[in-house]
Each structure stands twice: as structure tokens, then as C-alpha cells.
């Protein structure tokens, strides 16, 4: 241990000893403490999706840090495609199920799950297994395939994306939990946390027309999720995002969690064949100070089960 680190530890320990008991008095300060001590990123390996989620959240300071009692939670998985869970095209339903359970156990008043699907909504919801899993856990599975759910908002400081029609649930003051699945992508090279937020807007075509990567990065200037959980249990390494062959999909049994959407993506794409600089929207979001791009400087908690 270096001298500076040792001094830091002593100082931190002293502060904790003095402040700890008082902080523990309220849930809010407990959450604050968790936030100051928690790692920037947690990566879990070798478990089932639900077990890895439990571990990751514990390492981040517990679900209570994000979900206060009586909170409304909006969970945004990737349900873009009408494909079975084994294909890895959508977020793992077991992961969504466990997340909903944890939120409700933590005292959440209501948990919503939705995605603006690319294929026909009802087909995606049912075939992905997410609708059934989320409902079984007690969530309200909301719809997103009608323009009436969307409201136009301005994107402050957006370079290309100046305004967007955003789903009303994402506009609410709920706790936003982004649960993407990590995949190779034939259009943008990779998709994870940042790109998953295209599923809360109505007009995706506008992104493609105005510049896909810049629009994805711009959207985060409007609002960022409170927590990002990247599903890397089954990872599409080629022929993504939706019609990969079984041999394109690797059962990696990993999960990443971070409050920093850019850090989550920058680390996640290292599991693919590439590095964050090559996926333009991650680099652009990093440059816009949406989050941290410097994966090697992050405080990462690595857990092997």
C-alpha cells in the first residue's frame, strides 16, 4: 500500500467511524454512504442471470440505494425482437423477473416494464418471454406501440438530436433502470446500455436519418438512467442484432452493473470483438461527459462465482 493510499484509508476510516452511526439513522443517508463507497462498475461471472444480479446489486450497496420505499420504478429491457430467450436477441427474462422482484421487495410501489419494439409489439412481448416473466414477478407490463404514449421533449445541448418524442413512463419521476442485452450490431457495431435507450423514443428513423451515433449520445443529455445492468449471459458476437445463428451466440454468463451508462458500455464492448473507441456513440457520449470512458481507471469490483 502506498503512503497516500494508506493516509486516505485512515482518513476515510475516521470519517466513517464518526459519521457512520449518524448516517445509518436514515435510509437516504445510508444510500448516500453506499454511493460513496460503492465501486464504479461491478462485473459478475459464472452465475445464472438472477444470481449474478443479486451479487452485483449487493456489491453496489443493495437495491435500496436505488429504490426507496414507495418508489415507482421503470425497467427498460431490450424487447426489440420477436425471438426466443435462447437467441440472446432480447434481454434475459429471468434477469428481468429477478430485478422486478428485488424492486418490489425493496418496497417499490409499482414497477413498470416496457420497450418500443422493432418488430410487432405483442409478438415481441410474448416470444421474448419477458412479458410473462415480468408479470409473474408483479410488474405492470406497459405498451409502447402507439404514438399516444409519447410526448415531445427538447434535448438540451443535443448536437444532432434537438428534440424527441419520449415515452411517458420515461418522462415520469420514476427510478429508471436500464437493462440492455449486449450484442454485436450490424448497423452500429455494438449495442448495450446507450443504444437500448432508443427504445424509449417513438421515431427511431429520425436517429438513423440525423446520424445514428450522435443521436444516441445526445439523448443522454436529456435524461440518464439511475442504474444500468448489462445482460451478457448469452452474447451475440456476430450477425447481430436479431437473427444470429446459434454458433454466433456465446454463453458468457456475465453481468455488468453501473450507475454510469458510458462506463457500463465501454467495459461491456470489451467482451465483444472491439474496443470502446470503435463504437462511435460510446466515444461521443464519453466526449460529451455523459459518463466515463476510461475503463482502466474505473474502480471495478470483479466477482467470480
Amino acid at each position, binding site marked *: 500500500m502506498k503512503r497516500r493510499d494508506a493516509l486516505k484509508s485512515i482518513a476515510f476510516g475516521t470519517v466513517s467511524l464518526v459519521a457512520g452511526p449518524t448516517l445509518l439513522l436514515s435510509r437516504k443517508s445510508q444510500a448516500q454512504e453506499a454511493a460513496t463507497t460503492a465501486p464504479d462498475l461491478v462485473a459478475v461471472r459464472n452465475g445464472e442471470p438472477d444470481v449474478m444480479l443479486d451479487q452485483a446489486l449487493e456489491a453496489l450497496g443493495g437495491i435500496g440505494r436505488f429504490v426507496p420505499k414507495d418508489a415507482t420504478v421503470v425497467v427498460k429491457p431490450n424487447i426489440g425482437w420477436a425471438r426466443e430467450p435462447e437467441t440472446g436477441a432480447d434481454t434475459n427474462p429471468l434477469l428481468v423477473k429477478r430485478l422486478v422482484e428485488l424492486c418490489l421487495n425493496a418496497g417499490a410501489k409499482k414497477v413498470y416494464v416496457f420497450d418500443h419494439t422493432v418488430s410487432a409489439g405483442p409478438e415481441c412481448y410474448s416470444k421474448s418471454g419477458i412479458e410473462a416473466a415480468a408479470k409473474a414477478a408483479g410488474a405492470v407490463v406497459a405498451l409502447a406501440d402507439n404514438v399516444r404514449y409519447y410526448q415531445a421533449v427538447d434535448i438540451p445541448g443535443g448536437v444532432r438530436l434537438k428534440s424527441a418524442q419520449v415515452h411517458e413512463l420515461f418522462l415520469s419521476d420514476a427510478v429508471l433502470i436500464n437493462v440492455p442485452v449486449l450484442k454485436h450490431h450490424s448497423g452500429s457495431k455494438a449495442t448495450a446500455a446507450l443504444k437500448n435507450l432508443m427504445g424509449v423514443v417513438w421515431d427511431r428513423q429520425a436517429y438513423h436519418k440525423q446520424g445514428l451515433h450522435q443521436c444516441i449520445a445526445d439523448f443522454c443529455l436529456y435524461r440518464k438512467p439511475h442504474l444500468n445492468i448489462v445482460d451478457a449471459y448469452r452474447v451475440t458476437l456476430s450477425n447481430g442484432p436479431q437473427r444470429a445463428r446459434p454458433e454466433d*451466440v456465446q454463453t458468457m454468463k456475465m453481468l455488468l452493473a453501473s450507475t454510469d451508462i458510458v462506463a457500463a458500455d465501454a467495459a461491456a464492448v470489451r467482451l465483444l470483438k472491439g474496443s470502446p473507441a470503435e463504437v462511435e456513440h460510446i466515444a461521443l457520449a464519453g466526449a460529451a461527459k455523459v459518463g466515463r470512458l476510461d475503463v482502466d481507471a474505473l474502480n471495478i469490483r470483479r466477482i*467470480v462465482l
Partner: protein
Amino acid sequence: MRRGLRALRIAVGAAVFLVFAFAFLGVDAPAAALAALLPRTQAGPMLVRLVGAGSLAAALALAVVVVVTLTAGRLYCAAWCPLGILQDGVRFLARRLPWLRRWQDRPPRAGWPRWRRFIRWTVLTAAVVPAVLGFGALAASLEPYSAFGRIIVHGAWPLGGLARDALAAGLERLDVYALSGTEPLWPPAMAAGLMGAFLLLVIVLAVLGGRSYCTTVCPVGTVLGLLAGAAPLRVRVDAAACTRCGLCARRCRAGCLRIEGDAVHLEPSACVACMDCLAVCPAGAVRYGLPPAAAAPRRDAERRELLAAGSAAALAALAQPVRLLAGEHPAASDLGPVSPPGSGSRERFVRSCTACQLCVTTCPSRVLQPALLEYGAGGLLQPRLSFADGFCEYECKRCTDVCPTGALRPLALAEKQRTQLGVARLHKTRCIVYCRGEECGACAEVCPTHAVYTRPQDGLLCPEMAPGSCIGCGACEYACPESPKAIEVLANAIHGQAAEPHATEVPAAPAPPAARSTADFPF
């Protein structure tokens, strides 16, 4: 008993009508099941299916209708035809106005008018002969089941859809997402206009003349009327008990009952078995049943009609080989409309679709839209794939499941996923990636077979085509953000068979050994 038959007709009719309306209005699962079943009991589509696809089930359904009509009269028209029931509904509402009611109940003129006979046979011939020759638009516009479908889909759907949206929005305030969010279907103005004109005709006829459409215009009604002429079970008036008060004739919605001097006439080919006369007769002289003693002799008029029908059928049968000899051979792919999966070829489709719109209302992606003149005048309002409105969902084959006429043959999902409706053409001179040097990939992302894929070049992912794997679903065209579209589907006039899905990259490396320590993380 006499009142009971009328009540039964009303109850069955109302139930059938509601079930039909629900089948056409809903896209939810129970409606889909109804949509696949009910239309297969309808005479018009079953005749087309029998002729076009030689279906045994269609033959059976038709046989039931024929046998029922031959023995018991036009019960089918009374309570099984949705358009007939719709007219009864219109008449019921019109009778709430006293002055209309008085006018409707005026004493009828004597005799079943010859002009009605002339019109119905002319209409039947004018509809059926061109249909056999390959031009079915007139038959399809008059066929009652299909006409009812258009009234619901092009008229009630948009209005019903708005109501449904409002109801859904209300429920969602309570966090009940019970109704699917699919947006209402708005028909093209011309489709709505044609439907409106037809509906107006039906309403006017129903208000002024009850079931006039059924007795004078409807081609199905004319044929069933002919069969009903021979039915032993029919409405009968006991001449001894009858006081000649004429109440039955005034009330008759088909205009088939007449009191002339001392004689009571019933035109069995026009009677739609509504049973109103049974209920209204103060003397109880009207009954529905078998003849009292010896059967009445066959009348000349019936014989003439039979002869006319026979010659029309013979003409039609003769025309068939002529048409096949002169058959058109369309080019493999062209600028014409893309016909739905299961249609086989545009030519076959146009001949056997009655434009009932059931597939249009069932399609979850809204890609099926009624054509205007894209197929030519003969294909008016038949569905085509409109990639401005949606794309054909890879995992769906609902249209082929519900089509009652056999115009869309049922396909197994695997078969549908290899059916090539058309082939996409990529215009690199319009494509964002090639023109602006920015990544997009909207087309490749949605392609279910990787027929349009991306290739790394200069740090960008650039779209390319493998046309053999393309199935013409139009996902790429729908998703392309450029206008005009940088990728467009050209129709296959005759559907083809696509190659296996294209694979763009070598398979991923085998999975690394499971990580045993934190050093195995790539970050």
C-alpha cells in the same frame, strides 16, 4: 311457436352479427380464432375456395348451406349472413320513426314484379361470368360476406378503433394494459368512399324495401332463392283460416307475400324466412312447415330460372379452358404490387380474392392495405403489401390462416419464411452510409435473413445485398430513413423460393474456458 320462430331468428342473427363484427374488429387472440372459423361457413367465399382450391371443407360447408336451403328455405339469409342481419338492423332502427313505419307498412302492389326477377338474374350473370373469366371485382363487390367485411374494416374499424383507443387509454390510467396498442386502421379515401357508397345503397334499400338487396341484387341470394323454391319446409298460409286482412303482406320485409282478391301468393325464392308474418297474423293462419297434402306443382317461372342458371353455369364452364389457353404469363419481378404470402402469384390471387379485408384487419404490422388500381380494376380493394405502412413480420402468418377463399393458401411458418414475395434493390447512390459516410444500418438490422447485411469498409459498416436470400418482407424499405428510399422491394409477380438465410461472418470463436479468477476479465 309462431312468435318463437321469429324470436329465434332474431336471437341467432344478433349473435352471429356480433361474433362477426368482433372477428373483424379485434386483433386479439379470441378474435383471431373466430376470424379463422366463422367466414368458413359463408357461401360466397366457400364457393371461391371450392373452385379455386378444390377444398373438401369448402365443399362440405357449401353442401350444408345447399341442403338446408333445399329443405327449409333461405334460413341462411335470415340469420347467418352478416349483411342480411345488418339490413334487419337498419330496418329495425328505421321503424322507430312512425312516418317511415307507416310508409313501410303500406299495402304492396299485386304480384311479384317481373323486373325484380330480371334484375337479379342480370346481376348474377354480370357478376359470375366475368368472375369465371378472371375479372371478379363485380362479384366481389356484391358478395354479401365480403361486402360486410369492407363495411366493418373500412367504416366501423376507424371509428371503432378510436373508441377502442379511448377505452384503452382509460384502462391504462388504472395500469390495466388489456387492449393491444395497435393504432386504428385508416382506409385509403377511395376504399372508404366505395364502402360508403355501397353502405348507402344497402341502407336506402333496407329502409325503403326491407330485404330488397337480398331478393333483387345479391348474387348469393339469387342462387339460394332458386334452391329455396324447391324447399318443402316454408312459410304457408292456411287459406281457410286467413281473413285476407293483408297484415302479413304489409309487414313482409322481402315483399314476397301478396293478397290478390281472394288468393294469397307467396314467392318462395324471395322469402328470407324472417318469420315476421307468423308473428303478426291475428288469425294464426300463417305457419312454417310442410305442405298439408299433395305437393304443389312446379311452376313455369321456376323452370325458366333453372334453365337460365343452367345455361349461365355451362357458359362459365366453357369459358374456363378458353381463359387458361389465353392465360397471361407475367414477368418474374416488376413494379406492380407485392401480393401477400400464400397468394402464389399475383394472377392467381387477383382471381380468388373477394376483398373481404379479413387479412387486412388481422395483420399485426399494418403492412396489408387495400389496393386501389395497383392490381388493375379487377383487383380493386384486394390487399397488397404497403411498405410505407409496415413490413411483413417474419414470425407471423396470420393472413394465410384466416383467408376464407383460399386466395391465400395456409402456409407453415417455415414455408412462409422462405417464400419470396419480391426482392429488395439497394440504391447505394441514395444510401446514408455511402453518401454521408455515417453509420446507419437500419436496413441490415431489421433484415430477418441477412439478405441485406453490412460489410466493414473504412471503419464503417456498409450495406450490401445477397438477393437470393431476400424474401421481400419489406422490413428494410420500411426502416430506411432516406426519402426516396435507398432500398426498395420489387414484386415477384409469381412468388419464388428464397435461398437459406445469408450468413455474413465466420462463426464466433469457441467459448473460452470459464473464468476462474478475476484476472480473466477483459477490463
